[in-house]
């Protein structure tokens, strides 16, 4: 099982979802994939499909319409998974703290494992966050088979 365990931290596939932030953090996440920061060095791929993802990178303060989408994405992601809240508006709402249509933070909807600060979070901070997320991923256990996911 040693190899399987190591493989887990060597091959994190990420799913990136924006729940209503300003794009600032989203483009920094994309910047992490591009030559200058190239997180594929760590085996990371931006996979775009929750069923294949290990790490959820969530940005934005979560609005009412996004809440259910976010929950569904979280449920569809197979275990073990970690959630990284990128940017301060994903942590507390940040500058949108008094906006009426926001819930203020990803942790109001799904459990968050790692918070990355910054507005916008710098690519370096995002990489650090993912590295911490990988340490958390290593500690988590794999779940069993989940039949019939989707709309649960």
């Amino acid at each position: 099982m040693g190899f399987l365990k190591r493989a887990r931290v060597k091959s994190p596939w990420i799913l990136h979802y924006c729940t209503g932030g300003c794009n600032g953090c989203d483009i920094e996440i994309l910047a992490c994939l591009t030559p200058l920061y190239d997180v594929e060095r760590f085996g990371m791929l931006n996979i775009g499909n929750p069923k294949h993802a290990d790490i959820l990178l969530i940005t934005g303060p979560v609005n009412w319409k996004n809440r259910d989408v976010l929950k569904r994405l979280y449920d569809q992601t197979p275990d073990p998974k970690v959630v990284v809240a990128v940017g301060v508006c994903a942590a507390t709402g940040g500058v949108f703290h008094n906006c009426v249509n926001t819930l203020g933070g990803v942790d109001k909807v799904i459990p968050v494992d790692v918070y990355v600060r910054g507005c916008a979070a710098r690519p370096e901070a995002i990489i650090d966050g993912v590295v911490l997320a990988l340490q958390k991923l290593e500690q988590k256990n794999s779940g069993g088979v989940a039949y019939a996911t989707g709309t649960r």
Partner: protein
Amino acid sequence: MPVMSTNLIKNFFSGPATRPYPVVKREPFPRARVRLVYDPDKCTYCGICANICPAAAITMEEDRENLRISRHYDSFACISCGRCAELCPQAALLMAVRTHEPSDAKVVEHSTSR
């Protein structure tokens, strides 16, 4: 079709442009504005920073009985705008260039006047 080829050849032979980040840390630009550093010893608890903070990351609380003011700073709400550092009359605040470390819990910093 082969218009991209020259770029590829150049890329291949000039080596990767990647900044090997966690291994080699790049020196931040001297005027980067990333993280707020607070010196409670200089602070007079005047409240200006709390009043102007656009993200309400700084809040002040008055304890009338003990004649004390507490100041709370939530770095998980701070948008690094640097307004407070600019306006603080005591220069108790300053924008530093280092990035924040990631964290697994949200912590609010507190300080209280004597």
